[in-house]
Every structure is written in structure tokens, then in C-alpha cells.
């Protein structure tokens, strides 16, 4: 059985909605003791279902800020952020959290698995929080997802017992727990060796091919073979 088939069995294609990601005139300004700092200005962006978009740019160009706005982790100071049809810039912190659980899977550079839960429990916690998956199906789904990313044999270990590559795969599995249509990843390969980085990129590619929308901030150079589109940011603007 190919990897793709397996993944198609576990991950449903998203219901057709207008557009997974829609940014209109988005700006972000930070107030710091040293004065205000503009991280993003006038960003307009549309992403279609099934796209795998790479966001590239130098350090400080606003890549991570853009991703944070999409995931509802941060809010814009100007413009609209509409993800899966939801105007999340209008949501309260709590509404955003609930919405995020079902709609967006987040993958971090430093994996961010909860250290006192086993790999499988990390997935279960995400499902417990959202309640999108019926409770009798959660354990089975966790096993299947871990199988999908290739760390099923690590399910009962604490994250600290896993290698970086294994932790990132587990974190990706966790991001898929509630079957969100959009996946965002902040330099997911930044802490991985070449081989592990490659397999993570392959996973994302497969997800996008199965209909998920993937948006990834990255420093990797050789990504053209995986992504469907690259957006370059410089000084807070798309160039």
C-alpha cells in the first residue's frame, strides 16, 4: 500500500468552501519600547484548496508574523484575515482557540510536544480539547496518524525519548488530529537534518495533493519540487 493511499484513507478531503486563505490589506505593527515596528504592510493573498505554499524571506521579513496571523495566534492591526470563510480577525481569543482546533493544524519549528504526555497522548489531548472526533474513535485515529507519519512504534514514549525527526513527525500527526483543512508550519525543517527534512516535505506534499491546504514558512532552498507556489516577503511586503 502506498503512502498516499494510506493517507487518503485517514484524511478526508475538505468540504468545498470558498477559499481556504484570504488576506485583504493586512498590516501588523508592533509597539516596542524602542518605538513602533511595522512587521507587515498591505498584504493581499489568496490560497486555493490543495495548494502547498512556501513563504520565504530573510530573518525579520515578516514570514512568521504572516503565519501567526493566519493561525489566529496573532491579530492584524489592519485588514482582514479570512480562513475557511471565517473572519478570524474579529474573533475573541477564546473563539479563535476553538476555531483553530478544528480548522488549522499548527506545526512549530521546535516541535512543541507536551513533555509530560506520551506521543499518543499528545494526539489524544488535541482531540479531547476539540471534541470533533467521537471519543471512541480517538485512540484508533491516533494510532493511524502515527502510522501515517511513520512513528507508530514510538506511540507510548515521552517526546524526550524521540529524535528530532521523530518528534516533528509526531507533531505533524498531532496537527492532523482534528482533521483540519489547513496546515500551517513555521520552519518545520529548521531543526532537522537533510533526510528528515526531506521526508517532512514529502508528507506535506502528500497532504496538499489529497486536498489539504499547506502553508509553510521556510529557509530551505530546494523546495520547488514539493511546493505549488512560493511567496517571497521582504520588509513586510510580498515581492
Amino acid at each position: 500500500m502506498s503512502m498516499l493511499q494510506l493517507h487518503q484513507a485517514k484524511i478526508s478531503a475538505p468540504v468545498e468552501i470558498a477559499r481556504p486563505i484570504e488576506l485583504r490589506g493586512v498590516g501588523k505593527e508592533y509597539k516596542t519600547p524602542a518605538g513602533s515596528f511595522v512587521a507587515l504592510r498591505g498584504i493581499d493573498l489568496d490560497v486555493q484548496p490543495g495548494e502547498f505554499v512556501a513563504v520565504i524571506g530573510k530573518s525579520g521579513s515578516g514570514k512568521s508574523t504572516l503565519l501567526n496571523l493566519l493561525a489566529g495566534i496573532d491579530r492584524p492591526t489592519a485588514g482582514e484575515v479570512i480562513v475557511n470563510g471565517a473572519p478570524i480577525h474579529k474573533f475573541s481569543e477564546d473563539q479563535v482557540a476553538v476555531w483553530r482546533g478544528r480548522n488549522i493544524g499548527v506545526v512549530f519549528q521546535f516541535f512543541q510536544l507536551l513533555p509530560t504526555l506520551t506521543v499518543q497522548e499528545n494526539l489524544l489531548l488535541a482531540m479531547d480539547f476539540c471534541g470533533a472526533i467521537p471519543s471512541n474513535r480517538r485512540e484508533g485515529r491516533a494510532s493511524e496518524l502515527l502510522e501515517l507519519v511513520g512513528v507508530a512504534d514510538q506511540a507510548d514514549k515521552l517526546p524526550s525519548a524521540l529524535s528530532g525527526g521523530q518528534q516533528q513527525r509526531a507533531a505533524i500527526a498531532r496537527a492532523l488530529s482534528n482533521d483540519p483543512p489547513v496546515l500551517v508550519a513555521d520552519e518545520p525543517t529548521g531543526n532537522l537534518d537533510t533526510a528528515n527534512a526531506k521526508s517532512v516535505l514529502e508528507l506535506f506534499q502528500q497532504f496538499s495533493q489529497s486536498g489539504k491546504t499547506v502553508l509553510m514558512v521556510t529557509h530551505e532552498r530546494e523546495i520547488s519540487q514539493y511546493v505549488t507556489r512560493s511567496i517571497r516577503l521582504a520588509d513586510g511586503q510580498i515581492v
Partner: protein
Amino acid sequence: MLKKLPSAWRKVLRDLWLNKARAFLVILSIAIGIFGLGLVANSYAILVREMDVNYLRTNPAAATLYTTDLDDDFLQQVKNLPQVDEVESRRLIIGRVQTGENEWKTIWLFVIEDFGNLRLDRFSPEAGQYPAKTGEILLERDALKVANAEIGQTLGVKIPNATPAPLRLVGSVHAPGLAPAWMENFAYGFITRETLALLGGDPTLNELKVTFVDKSLNQTAVRSTATDLRIWMETQGYPVSRIEVPKPGKHPHATQMATLLFLLEVFGVIALLLSAVLVVNMITALLAQQIRQIGVMKAIGANARQVTGIYYGMVLILGLTGLLVGLPLAILAGRAYAAFASKLLNFQIFSDAIPWPYLALQVLVGLLAPVLAASYPILRGSRISVREAMSDYGISQKSAGVSSFTRLMRKIANRPFVLSLRNTFRQRGRLLLTLGTLAVGGAGFIVAMNVSASASSTVDAEFAAQKYDIQTVFSFPYPEQELEQQAKAVAGVARVESWGSAQVVRVLDNGTESNKFRLLAPPERTVLMTTLPLLEGRWLAVDDGNVLVANHALLAAQPDLKIGGPITLRIAGKETTWKLVGVVQEMMFPPTVYMTKESLNAAMGWDGLASTLVVVANPRDAETVVQVSRRLESQFAGSGLDVYGSVRMADYRKVIEDHLLVLSTFLVLMSVLVLLVGGLGLASTMSINILERTREIGVLRAIGASSGSILKIIVAEGAIIGT
């Protein structure tokens, strides 16, 4: 087993397990808080209830009227009066009981009409035979030790103006209405009228004890009702010489117990407050580690309620565990303290059950207080945005810039010390909590030490003022020349002074009388007594006229007394008016007034009479003083001088010091507990401060700081908080 739990609970349990040391500290803090609160609440519940039970079982007389030969017919007439509820007749003789060869202790002999029908001021059989028959005596259980006696032995008992007679000690009784014998340092005995006759006393009963129908009267109202009764009795041919009215419904030990409980309350509340502060600190610390994880959980879809749920669950587990440790200990300690206090105050604990509202309060506090204490850090932590959480290292965003103080410090101190100083003040709220804890802990300790120190220095001053070793009081005034010659004839006596003394009452403006108290009158040129520790006014002087000084025990009993005001005394039946010029402090002395012997004799028209001898031994060591006191007893007995009572000051002091020791040990223990909580507070703050900065320490290392210099920075920070 863990597998069955929801994943959030697994996280709670594993996080606690991962932070065993800190969780243990939180549990300890909660346990200490519950212990502090529970100790107070539980012992209070038991003591107040049992003291009331004990006191009410005695059916205390509302008033005692001193008159002449009471008979059953007259008692029945009194009982028939509409305002009178119950009556009983008694007689009290103050005698002496032999406790060794030429060793005597004062004994209060209660003469009982019918041991089988006690109606007022009751007591109950404790051990041995009951009742006492002719030639037999019962002692109060607490007095057995004072009298150095065992049930079954024969005691020499002497009443004034009679020769000693042997009485068989057949049993003991418990009389919780009396002040504890060990505190008074005299004994209580119970005998029949026939036995009193055997001792050479007048076997008539002269005390009329009554209770009134209206139980709601205050002391003044009882006194005026008793005065009405006196007027009526005098029309019936029963002159009343004196009326004693105790505070109604108030156990004679209520004040002492209030003191014991107050000490407890203070430290219980301090322990509770400090532990609450500590719990806040600890939970903040636990959460400080969790901030990033809170961010992650929110990023994967947890709402604020789910996040707070996890941490409230954690706090509830801690609270429950703290409660499981603290509550049983609080119950044990509360019962132990109640037992200790009841033994001290000579009453019986019939039931040490703790009422459920008290237990419920402790459970509620144990669960709720940590939850409340943790609410601020939990709510603050759960409201933090994902982005803040993911970048939080515990450094405030609103950094205040460099103050002029630290600029000054930079000039005079080296850079690492300036770092310590700034680190100290980085989290101001936490710093304040820790400083508060340390300050309150330290203050508690200092207060405890001060109370102990001032108590013992008061005792020192009091005994330093009394420069004699033995004080002997005679049943009647004797010519002072004769008393002094007799004493000087005894080997080992270095110096003697004869003093005036009496039992007196104060005549109040409305013609009623106060309870009895003691009068002591040293000569104006005495060398054996100097000024007692003065609270107000002045001490006695030469050619003082009709002035007197009272001790604070008298002022406590008669708070209307004013410095400079008049006070009318009835001394040996004669009324004289005096001016109160000073108040002195005497630890655990009965109410007493002091005047000069010259003033007393002038007012009374006595010439060269005295009824008290104070004696200095040579040498003044304990053994010689004991020998001299025995020789004096033998000398006075041989020359027919009737001794009313005699006390060695060293014995008296020991009783007081034993009592103080108990209190000060207790105070010190409690303050150590409080200090311990303060120390835990400092430890926790330091550990949080360091934990939040592991990254910063890494940076310090990266720029070349050795372990030693990092340690210096941290220790300096601890020292800055501590100072």
C-alpha cells in the same frame, strides 16, 4: 490505571510528578496552613464547649453571703423567696496541711453539710472513697501533688488557733469550679462538720450560697439582688459581714483560657496567611514553567476554560493531598492542645469530638484557599496569548529602564552585584509577597521571643524587689518585738522584718463590698522590699499617710479604680479611706494592695503589732532556706505562735516559672513553625527566579561567567531579599 483517565488528567498527574519537589512544597504549605487553622479551630471548639460543660455541672453559686450559724429552717425560708432559685450552706476554713517534717502548705477546707446532696458549687468523686466520714478528708485531685499526699495516708491538718490533728486522706474529688491548686500553690480539702469540730473549729456553717431565678443578671445586678437578700436576712437576725459575687456564667479560668487561645489564634492565623502566600508563590512557579505549554495547548485548540480546568485540577489535587496530611494532624494537635490546656486549668474533657461545622470549615479552606490563591496566576496564565506564551521567559515587557539608584550602585558596586540587585527587583509582585512572608514570619518570631523575655524579666524584677527568702503570715497580729525575737533566735536567720498584713474588702459607693483581697504592709524604711515593677503612678514613700499601691490583678478585678482616686477598705471590720497612688505589675499574684506598716497601724490604731514576718537566710542557698523555714516552723509552734501560712519565695518562683516555661515553649514552637513557612517562601521565590532564567544563565556562561560567579550573583540576590 492512568490509561483510563482523560489525557488532560494524565498531564496533570505527570506534571506534578515531574515537579515532585515543588508539589511537595505546595502540599506542605497547604498542610501547614490547615494545621495552623485546624489546631486553633479544633482546640477552641473542644475547650470552650468542655469548659462550659464542666462549669455548668458544678452549678456555680451566683453569690455567697457570709453570716452566722445557718440552720435548715432558715435555708428553707431563703429558698422560698421568689427571686431565689437554690441555696446551700457551707463553711470555708483556711488551715494548713503538713507535707513533711516542719513543712506545711496552706489548705482551704470546705466544710460540707451533706456530701450526698450537693446543690451548688458542686464537685464529683474522682478516686478512692466518697464521701468522707468523721476524721477523714477528701482532696481536690489537682491538690494531691501540692499537698505531696497519696490516698490512704494520714495528713496532719491544722486550723488557726488550734493544734494539728491527723485526718485520713480517703479519696480525691474533681472541683473544676476552683482555680487550679498547682497555680495557687495551696491545697483544697473537703470535710464534714464533725471533722471540723475534731480539728478544733466552730462546726457551724456561715456561708450562704445562692442562685437566683433570673439567670441573665450581670455581676452588678447579682450584687444588688444579693444586697437585697442581705437586708432581708439582717431583719431575720442573720447579720451579713460580706458578699462574694463571681462574674456570672464565667468560669474563673476563662481569662487564662482566653490568653491560651489568643496565642493560638494569632499563630494559627499567621500560619494560614503565610501558607496562602506560599501557595500563590508556588502555583505561580508551577505555572511559570507551563506558560509555553499553555501556548501550545491553545495552538492545538484548547479554550481558556479547558486550560484553567487543567490547572485548577492540579491545584485541587494539591489541596486535597495537603488536606489529607494537615487535617488529621490538626485534629490530633487540637485534641492534644485541648488536653494540655484542660490539665493546666483542671477541668475534664468529657468528649473530644470536633463539631462538623469546624471540620467542614477546614475542608473548605483546604480546598478553596489554594484554588483562590492560585486563581490569579491561573487566570493570568490562561489569558496569555499564544504568541506571548511561546516567547515568555518571565521577563516583563514593560521594563522600567535603569533607575538612578542602580546607576549609583553601578558606581560603587561591581557589575555582577548590580545584576543581582536588578534580578531581585525584576518581579516586584513576587518580591513583595516573599518580603511580606519573611517579615511576618520574622515578626512572629520576635513577638514570641519578646513575650517570653518580658514575662521572665517581669518575674525577675518582681522577685528582685522582694529581697527575702521566707514569708510567714500569722493567724492574728502579735507584738512585733516578740515575732522578731523568736525569728532571730533561729539558726541561719540573717535578717528579719515584721510587716502588717490582712485580708480586706473594698467598700463600694453603693454600700456593697468587693470580693476579698490581700493587704501587705512593709515598714516604710524596709530594706527587704523595693519598688515592684511600676505600671503607673508611684511606689510607697516615708510619711506617706493614707496612700496605697495596687497590683494589676486588683485593677483587672475592679477596673473602676483610678490613680489619685479614693478607695475605702474594710480592714478587720473597720472602714478607712485611702488614696491609690500607683499600680504595679506582678505575674500571677492574687489581687493585692500595698501600704506602709506605719500607715496601716496609724489608721487601725494598732501599736507595735504585726502579722507577717519576712526572713532572710544566711547563706541564701536553696538548702539553707529550706532548713531555716523548717526551724522557724518548729520555733513558732514551740512558742505558741499561730502560723496561718508560710511560703518560700523560691518555691513560689518555681511555680510561676514552670507555668511560664510551658507558655514560652509553646510560643517558640509556634514561631519556629511560622519562620519555617517564611523560609519556604524565600526558597520558593529563589527557585522560581532561577528557573525562569535558566536560559539567561546559559547566556552568562556563554559570555564567560564561571559557575562560581553565577553562584555569587544568585546568593547576592537571596541576601538582598533576606535583608
